[in-house]
């Protein structure tokens, strides 16, 4: 199939960017979106151009490193699918596809489609852990966790940290990301003790990084590759308020 691309090109964070138009005459429907971009780069290099920089590593939907806006949607038109798992059969012959980096004040563009998501690391550093050091931990089965709670904790813990939730949010809020970690740890008995401070510190760090506030649009849940539920945001707010009032 023939695909026309409008791709964001920006050589450096300090330089202005603009869209550039490309055409790929022979895209196979079996290609993944990133393989289509590989093909584009191959074509650009044959003409001695500078290939498009874009992020990826695992190419199987789990590392969270890939992610671009495709026709205005984080990770493209399919719900709950990373960019690397999107295949060209989702598009039609002759389609024009706009490709842009994830946009947010807290995610500055580094080059072309690559953005700096280190703010997520700093949110975790602020308290997204259980303070258990390596060593003689208690026997694992001495901490019982009801099946449903373990599964609920998993549903929050499976976040891949891609940033689609931020990119898709009109306020560039990191509420889904932050709440997923708060919720994962607060749901487990091992993590309950530190829940209050964790919520306070992580939320404060997210604010400091320049992420916006959540206004309950719930767009993030749709784009999240792991379909993490917005209910975790409610839990975060509860933990946060509990920390403030009790």
């Amino acid at each position, binding site marked *: 199939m023939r695909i026309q691309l409008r791709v964001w090109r920006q050589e450096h964070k300090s330089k202005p960017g603009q869209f550039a138009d490309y055409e790929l005459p022979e895209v196979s429907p079996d290609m993944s979106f990133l*393989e289509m971009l590989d093909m584009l780069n191959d074509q650009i290099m044959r003409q001695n151009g500078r290939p498009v920089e874009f992020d990826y590593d*695992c190419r199987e939907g789990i590392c969270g490193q890939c992610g671009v806006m495709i026709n205005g949607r984080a990770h493209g038109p399919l719900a709950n699918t990373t960019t690397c798992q999107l295949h060209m059969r989702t598009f039609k012959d002759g389609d024009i596809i706009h490709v842009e980096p994830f946009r947010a004040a807290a995610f500055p563009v580094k080059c072309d489609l690559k953005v700096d998501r280190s703010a997520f690391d700093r949110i975790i550093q602020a308290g997204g852990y259980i303070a*258990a050091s*390596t060593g003689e931990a208690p026997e694992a089965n001495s901490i019982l966790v009801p099946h449903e709670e373990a599964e609920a904790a*998993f549903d929050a813990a499976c976040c*891949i940290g891609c940033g689609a939730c931020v990119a898709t949010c009109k306020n560039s809020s990191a509420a889904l990301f932050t709440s997923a970690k708060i919720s994962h740890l607060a749901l487990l008995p091992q993590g309950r003790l530190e829940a209050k401070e964790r919520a306070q510190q992580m939320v404060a760090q997210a604010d400091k990084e320049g992420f916006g506030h959540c206004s309950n649009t719930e767009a993030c849940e749709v784009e999240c590759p792991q379909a993490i539920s917005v209910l975790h945001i409610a839990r975060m707010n509860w933990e946060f308020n509990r920390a403030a009032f009790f």
Partner: protein
Amino acid sequence: MLDAKIPEGPLDKKWEHYRSKSHLVNPANRKKLKVIIVGTGLSGSSLAASLGESGYHVSSFCFQDTARRAHSVAAQGGVNACKNYKNDGDTVFRMFYDTIKGGDFRAREGNVYRLAECSVNLIDQAVAQGVPFAREYSGYLSNRSFGGVQVSRTFYAQGQTGQQLLLGAYQALMRQVSAGTVKLFSRHEMLDLVVIDGKARGIIVRNMDTGEVERHGGHAVVLATGGFGKIYYLSSLAMGCNASAIWRAYRRGAFFANPSWIQFHPTCLPQFGEYQSKLTLMSESLRNDGRIWVPKKKDDNRPPNDIPESERDYYLERRYPAFGNLVPRDIGSRAAKEMIDAGYGVGSLKNAVYLDFSKAIAEQGEGKIEDKYGNLFRMYQKITGINAYREPMRISPASHFSMGGLWVDYELMTTIPGLYAVGESNFADHGANRLGANSLLQACVDGYFIAPSTMPNYLANEIRTGPIDTRQSAFATAEEAALQKLKGFLAIQGSKPVDYFHKALGKILYDDCGLSRSRAGLTEAIAKIRSLRGEFYHELHVPGGGGQAMNSELEKAGRVADYLEVGELMCYDALNRDESCGAHFRVEYQTPEGEPLRDDKNFAFTSAWEWTGLDTEPLLHKEPLHFETVTPTVRSYK
């Protein structure tokens, strides 16, 4: 002579003996010592966090944009530990035996026993960190069974065990970053190792965002850089997985053990086209209910559902009646390749076999199958567009795990004093074939328990060394060489992109040093790789002569340049080993029925190779394997 430094005493007391006798570093002295850890997968993150907690200064490096994306994240199935929660007779010894046997009796008893011993504690550690392992309704931890064993010792978190374990380690690491003991350097790629007076003293890295080349010094260097199965280009690994860090160390004098032992996973998605970059793994658990077959007729182009039962060859069930579709990975993969090579492959490129669920669906109902494998069927459909409830999946073997790696002794130290290798980057525990769910375990125990106990034995003598000065000439020379190499890639100005060479190398290795090997093929492969390497340095095209900072093609060029040397070493290794064992199948050494023929008399050793220069044969050192506790037997799955 290679000294593995296996402690004296009975097998089950070795680790305890070691720990009670090795040197320690006083807490007050730890802050005088700096450790460089390259890699933030399970092994690197867990080690960095553990050393940070105990008070050392740690610098942690990875090439991804954050530590949490290391490829450990992709492990699906689970992690083994002999907790015996199922009361099914599991013990440390049984787990040790399963691992030694699974590795076809080509691993060290002492190391493997320790792996099993430490497994128990690992689960406690992970649970304390909040890893949400699957639970029974009673709240107790749940287990499942995995290939090659008769007990249920695999702990799991849905199909994302590696991710959950890694996040546990990553969070522990982030905690140390905020405590100020660990400094993070993400998007930094190691280009060289700096050795001064015979000791590892630092590394040269490239900041992949700014393009700058930097020097980092430390009292010890740890490589936790993962596997290099990506050398075949198509694999279940991540795009950035590489051998560069261990290869640079090899060229600086560290020995490389069993480089050709690469595990091919039997249930990956096949290649669909030339542009393809990845062969996604489909969990092995599918083989519990899926039946593997090919058409009995060669080049049969009928859709699978039109091929009647009588014209299908369920070749695993036919050849291995006892284990059937559940034979170990090496056997399943090799059998698939044999069918494909003989012309029975299916799919548009004739490079796959069928994994068929129709019988299981008929017997158990679609709902039951969906409960068990729904996410995998969805993933399969996402990638291929095919509904596997209606027609069989197409699968093929893909490069997956490197059993070989840097040679390390019992302390996980390489042949360069002060240089350690942990996790998949070392060769230590899996012999010639790795059992499922044992490598997450190995990466974790190396990082949480083993290296933190063995490194002080070396570091205790470094307390008076003082900070490592990176202005020393060894740093300057290594940095200059790294810069020249990068400039060299840009200067070639040929017409072929890096991927062309990577794919060509992958093809040579897959054909001649993959699932089966022969003397003639390997000899030829060495010549082909050398000529490809020549072409690389004449024909390579890396854009960006203008010196732009971010340059993915330049990063890839460095990795492939190293792969072009690693591939040659793999062939030498495979050529040297005149036997078949585990993943290493030499066609000359097989029984009349086509089963591998191991030669314990002549080959019960680890091959540890020493670099002697480009285009020359490397030097082989042998570490004999002593079996004091077990008696090697023939692995039979008939």
